[in-house]
């Protein structure tokens, strides 16, 4: 048994760790409701910074770009990632180890390396930088994540249902869509939501592959930060954090649900 005396300081330490994780985000949210421009002192509660955001055409344009990119990247990467997870689960082939390793690479490659190699590539093939190049990049880094989440679901799946379906005369195509996909659905939805969030929040890769007029929200925040700390950035950041947390919570709930 672990002694009680050993237990207590550990609990305190862990609590401090969580405080460390969440305090800065709380500070950010608190400041976004502060009247004072100089955020050291608390003056009074206000929502004026949020209202100012809604009247900023540049922020709204960036929001539109972010949504377009995240939705398209989510759809493409969810389809490709799910097919990949299924293919790796269903078939055995010799190059599987290599394939696994290659899918692992985009996850560990520093974002800045991905960003600059893509910008070199896009310039070489004369693809103009804009929403299209951003979407291409996002799909590439979303695929491995979708694949991993769907694969985790596949590994917990009851294979006998698929076999029963085939025994009863359904071809593989029908079995995939009528038996496999419905069972995987919670995993696929969770993966889609996370792919959306990753894409919506991405800064570094987007920073390199974006062009004039294709500013997304994270890029907008970065350029605002460069000009100096302002309550408007706090408000925008607080909204994005809130949005991400909501999506991730839903994804987590969906993923835990059994079929």
């Amino acid at each position: 048994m672990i002694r009680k005396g050993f237990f207590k300081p550990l609990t305190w330490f862990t609590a401090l760790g969580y405080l460390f994780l969440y305090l800065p985000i709380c500070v950010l949210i608190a400041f976004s409701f502060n009247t004072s421009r100089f955020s050291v002192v608390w003056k009074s509660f206000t929502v004026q910074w949020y209202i100012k955001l809604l009247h900023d055409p540049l922020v709204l344009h960036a929001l539109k770009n972010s949504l377009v990119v995240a939705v398209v990247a989510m759809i493409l990467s969810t389809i490709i990632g799910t097919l990949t997870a299924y293919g790796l689960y269903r078939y055995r082939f010799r190059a599987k180890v290599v394939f696994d390793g290659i899918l692992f690479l985009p996850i560990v490659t520093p974002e800045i390396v991905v960003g600059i190699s893509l910008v070199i590539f896009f310039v070489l093939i004369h693809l103009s930088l804009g929403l299209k190049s951003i979407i291409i990049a996002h799909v590439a880094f979303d695929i491995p994540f979708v694949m991993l989440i769907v694969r985790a679901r596949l590994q917990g799946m009851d294979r006998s249902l698929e076999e029963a379906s085939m025994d009863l005369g359904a071809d593989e195509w029908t079995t995939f869509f009528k038996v496999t996909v419905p069972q995987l659905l919670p995993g696929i939805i969770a993966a889609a939501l996370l792919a959306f969030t990753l894409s919506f929040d991405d800064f570094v890769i987007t920073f390199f592959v974006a062009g004039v007029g294709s500013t997304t929200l994270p890029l907008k925040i970065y350029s605002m930060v460069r000009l100096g700390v302002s309550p408007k950035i706090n408000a925008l950041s607080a909204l994005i954090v809130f949005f991400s947390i909501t999506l991730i919570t839903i994804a987590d709930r969906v993923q835990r649900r059994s079929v």
Partner: protein
Amino acid sequence: MKKPGLRIMILKFFNRHENLRAFGILSPCIFWIGVFFLLPLVFMGVYSFLEKGLYGGVRWIFTWENYTRFMDPLYLKILLRTFRLSLITTLILLIVGYPMAYRIARAGKRWRNILLFLVVLPFWTSDLIRTYAWMLILRDTGLLNGLLQVLHITGKPLTMLYTEGAILLGLTYVYLPFMVLPLYASIEKLDSSLLEAAEDLGATPFWRFLKVTVPLTKSGILAGSLLVFIPSVGVFVVSDLLGGAKAMMIGNLVQLQFGPARNWPFGSAASFILMAIVLIAIFMYLKFAGGREALEEVR
């Protein structure tokens, strides 16, 4: 009679060739990752051996110069700083993350799920915003300096932002989840009867921890260290916002070459070195942690 549809024909064809079917279903992924991830890396490698042209372009002349430039003390310093800060971050996070992971693993089932979710949550939220939050706290007119002055601990603001210390704090903050999760996974599997045996045999808590707990959770320690070290070496946002121009890391050097300096070949070389460090780290991890199974651990 109805003609057999195209779908049936495709199915029949694929039914006969299992390998082809596997290839068919994997081909969108092979295409996308191959063309938009691997191929660009190859081009980046090629660029790193080219000469810089006018206005940010390149001249197709082979040169080693982009790599030999790293012998310059200026760039060597950036390389060493990157290494130093990443290693210190990994060490700090081992010390901070281990007790946290241990406590989570020992919590009741209900609490454990909540605590784990609270660690994962920041992982999926924007690094940029989480780093920016620290600017609010650390800058000269920020929260911390404000508090210090109100409490009369300091007279004038301390410089905390744009220092190496600020980068370390930011890295520790941003990558804490990367350390806690793999540690948790290995501590959770720990067989507590072994700890009891150690205690029965007279081991003090300290030695029990060092001789039993640590070796048994080695896989988590190694995986966590790798997952923290890799993104720290390649970091850009944290060092850009919290370190500024005075404490550049490799990531910032790369950005500089692709931004204002307009030297794409040199930036590619820096980026290639970054990639090499990452691959060496993975290779060393596999060697110490033992093969393919270890790769699964990281996931």
